């Protein structure tokens, strides 16, 4: 017999009642984006993994305060992002993101997307370096918004800042990047 897949709100309700199997499903669904969020903030795989793990444990403890009907992903990512920020502060370093070695050919045999095809490998490297040069607060917004594809509202929730601040940081970042890109 094949059971009906549980929807997210069912899983959350069950997890709030202490059901770890339900929470495991939520972790499985979100651990990828949680790790990537932590990674673009902490810039270190080991720290990102620890931040994601600690974030999930803290989210479990905080589930009782999760508001029913609210979007779960940004709520979770905010906890994870906070963990990652703490690690970045502690480490005091400023690492860079890396491009895949085979930059000219995205993974697998798939053809590059039309957008990816717009960029030469040199442009990619220049643009990434320019992103790395941004102040942390602008870099976080750009990374979450464009690299991870979060909406403005999700970026705001994840970073714990108003959406207007996301817009202004993003606008300032784009203005700086435009100098390198044009």
């Amino acid at each position, binding site marked *: 017999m094949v059971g009906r897949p549980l929807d997210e709100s069912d899983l959350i309700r069950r997890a709030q009642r202490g059901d770890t199997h339900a929470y495991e499903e939520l972790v499985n669904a979100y651990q990828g984006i949680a*790790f990537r969020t932590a990674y673009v903030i902490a810039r270190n795989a080991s720290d*990102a993994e620890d931040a994601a793990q600690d974030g*999930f444990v803290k989210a479990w403890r905080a589930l*009782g*305060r999760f508001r029913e009907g609210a979007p779960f992903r940004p709520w979770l990512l905010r906890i994870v992002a906070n963990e990652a920020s703490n690690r970045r502060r502690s480490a005091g370093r400023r690492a860079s993101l890396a491009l895949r070695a085979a930059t000219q050919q995205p993974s697998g045999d798939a053809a590059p997307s039309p957008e990816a095809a*717009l960029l030469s490998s040199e442009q990619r490297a220049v643009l990434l370096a320019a992103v790395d040069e941004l102040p942390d607060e602008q870099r976080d917004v750009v990374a979450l918004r464009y690299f991870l594809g979060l909406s403005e509202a999700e970026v705001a929730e994840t970073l714990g800042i108003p959406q207007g601040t996301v817009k202004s940081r993003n606008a300032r970042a784009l203005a700086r990047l435009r100098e390198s890109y044009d």
Partner: protein
Amino acid sequence: MTELERALAALGEELEFPQSRDVWPRIADRLRRRRWVRPAVFALAAGVAALAIALAVPPAQTRPFATGLGPALTQPTLKLPASVTATKYYKRPGLAAALLRYRGAQLLFAELRGDQMGFAKKFVGPTTHAEEVRIGEWGIWFTGAPHVLMWDSGTARTRLAGNVLIWLQNGVTYRLEGQLNRDRMLVLARQITP
């Protein structure tokens, strides 16, 4: 979306994200362990965090609330919700505190920089009750009795002046002490760290 924004999105496709291991086994292990945590053990957190305040406190149940916190200040050292009235403020390295009036009770509220929850050990007596509560990233409700505090540089025998709620959120340890019941204390705590 502008051309630059499309280029950034395209760049995102090319980023090298390291492979991460499945985190669930470690999370499950941590959740399982926590179920067996006994009050006397999570006192590792509680009391210990009773921290700088309790630390410097004389061993008498009659101690004034804020003994050991140094001279009272008139300038606010803490951001507080509108529901409380601060009568005095205190500040020491790594700690800011205030004496509050809330629902007719006097409370001592303190903020400590960093996670103090695992700083030292607290050995509770048979009449001390510690209970995990849902507040912040980790909270403990703690009703008092004579107890010994141990921290990294010493010990002190002290007595709580009232019930204590200690919680950790965003890298800050918060502590509320006073004659309020658990539910009322939690209501106030959630106003302090919404």
